[in-house]
């Protein structure tokens, strides 16, 4: 009885017009293919020396050789280890502080004037200081990575906590919950999904600092391998390193997204 007819032909370029799943995959693939082809053409055009700007295939080969012959996996794991340890330390500092600052304005009034400007202190400029204070070992690298994110984490977790709706707190109060209990069972729980999101987003910042941390006095890690490659003008290996960091970053991002689904099923369920 009902005729299916779309009287207007809608152009693809309609404001906020959703794109079908298939078209989305198609466009995503074609953008990558265009990018790779463009890269290849440019690199093999002879305009720039291939040593300085190797085509994608050379980079993938270099990557393969790194893993197959130069035990790159050990370096990758070392870098991942540094990221995880440093991020764990940063969370251990930022989570309680951010929660308290977000919950009690009086705590924020004390710490915020200190923490907020610290975000503007460029972590890389601490390298010489950290080297002198802590030496050339892992401590120096890990502290650098912590310094790179911890101020942002504190501020953002504070924001997440402040965004918890006052009504939830007041409801818990009228139900007879104590202040401590509200902090744990309401404020923390309510802010948690956003905090996990914050942690996911800031992890990207940690990855960008990794190379800086591993440039100096590094004997292993992805950054160290890239520095070595630089010395011998192995641009293909440098690009392979960049690629690996990019892929690792995306993997961690995906892992944390999955964790979000796992931890907060209630946010991802449809209405019935």
């Amino acid at each position, binding site marked *: 009885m009902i005729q299916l007819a779309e009287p207007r032909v809608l152009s693809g370029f309609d404001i906020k017009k959703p794109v079908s799943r298939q078209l989305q995959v198609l466009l995503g693939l074609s953008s990558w293919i265009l990018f790779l082809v463009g890269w290849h053409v440019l690199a093999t055009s002879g305009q720039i*020396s291939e*040593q*300085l700007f190797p085509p994608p295939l050379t980079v993938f080969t270099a990557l393969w050789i790194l893993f197959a012959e130069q035990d790159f996996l050990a370096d990758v794991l070392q870098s991942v280890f540094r990221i995880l340890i440093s991020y764990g330390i940063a969370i251990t500092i930022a989570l309680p502080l951010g929660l308290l600052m977000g919950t009690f304005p009086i705590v924020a009034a004390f710490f915020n004037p200190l923490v907020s400007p610290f975000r503007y202190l460029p972590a890389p400029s601490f390298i*010489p200081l950290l*080297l*002198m*204070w*802590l*030496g*050339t070992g892992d401590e120096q690298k890990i502290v650098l990575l912590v310094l790179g994110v911890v101020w942002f984490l504190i501020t953002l977790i504070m924001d997440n906590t402040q965004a918890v709706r006052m009504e939830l707190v007041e409801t818990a109060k009228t139900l007879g919950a104590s202040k401590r209990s509200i902090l744990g069972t309401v404020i923390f729980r309510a802010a948690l999904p956003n905090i996990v999101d914050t942690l996911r987003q800031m992890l990207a910042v940690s990855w960008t600092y990794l190379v800086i941390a591993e440039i*100096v*006095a590094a*004997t292993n890690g992805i950054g160290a391998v890239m*520095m*070595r490659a*630089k*010395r*011998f*003008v192995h641009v293909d290996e440098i690009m392979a390193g960049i690629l690996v960091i990019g892929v690792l970053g995306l993997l961690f991002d995906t892992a944390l997204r999955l964790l979000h689904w796992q931890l907060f099923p209630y946010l991802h369920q449809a209405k019935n």
Partner: protein
Amino acid sequence: SSQTSGNSGASGGVEKKETVKVSLFSWPGYGFWFIAKEKNLVPELDLDISIIEDPYESFNLMSSGQLDATSSTVEYGPIAVDKDVPVKLVSYTNPSYGTDRIILSPQIKDPSELKGKKVAVLEGGLTQIYMGIWLEENGVNFKDVEFTNVIMDDAVAAMLSGEVAAGEFWEPFGTQVLEGLEGARAVTSSSEDFWIKTALLGDGMYMSESLLNDRPEAAKLLMKAYFEAVTFWKENPEEGNKIIAEGLKFDVKDVENVIGADGEIYKGGIAVFDLEEASKFMGLAEGEPPLGMKNGQIRDHWDLTSEWWMKFGLVEEKAEPEAGIAFEPMKSLLAEQ
């Protein structure tokens, strides 16, 4: 701190080793530390070796107590004295014998064309003096070129990008530039007589004052470790080169390009001094060092570098060699032999 220096040869039980932190930038000429460690040539010491590409980073770490010794080019003594950095030269370890070359980019046909152009050097490094003298020899005042301050890693990149017109390179970086930049050419090499006579281009070993003053025994043992490694290498050049290549993550070929494959003085690379040759150069033993250098030439070297640092404005007034050179470790090592 665990100072258990000197009770070597103790029987049976597990020895407590004394840790000494050494650094180098990745270059085959400094790789002997890896042999000393790998072969455990001085069992009393535990060598903690790190690779730090910027020698100044190493000097900083030495002054902050994070590092005890480093191998680097041999020009830093006067600067350390002038800037009050608690680091002293303890030995000249080798002259350069062809590894150091000045390379011009393809566009530069004549040194005079360098006026107003950018030239890659490490400020406060030997390369700056090398370049300065070479420019003067070719009738260009060093003030007429623009020095761009880069470490060797970045110097290669800067040269390849075509952005600097000249630079000083040691192996294997010189070859990389020549291969990567068509038309580039080397205009002078450290194996030329002019440079050998001055002994200007060479490497040395530096120790921190805290090591020298607080742990003299460890300082001596450290120097011993280095020269034992040289001895080992002279006897087993193939194995020695392999250890160095692994330590630096270089190709063995690149190592051979610098220190040769047979444990002898290698033209085109460097002339590695053993303890005897080094002590003659330092004026602590009788006789002449090889390549026509003279006994105790380190003092002339000191004067030459001091002079140039004053020209470059890095040193305000000339100091006596004794202020920047510590002879004690070598003296006590020689006394032991």
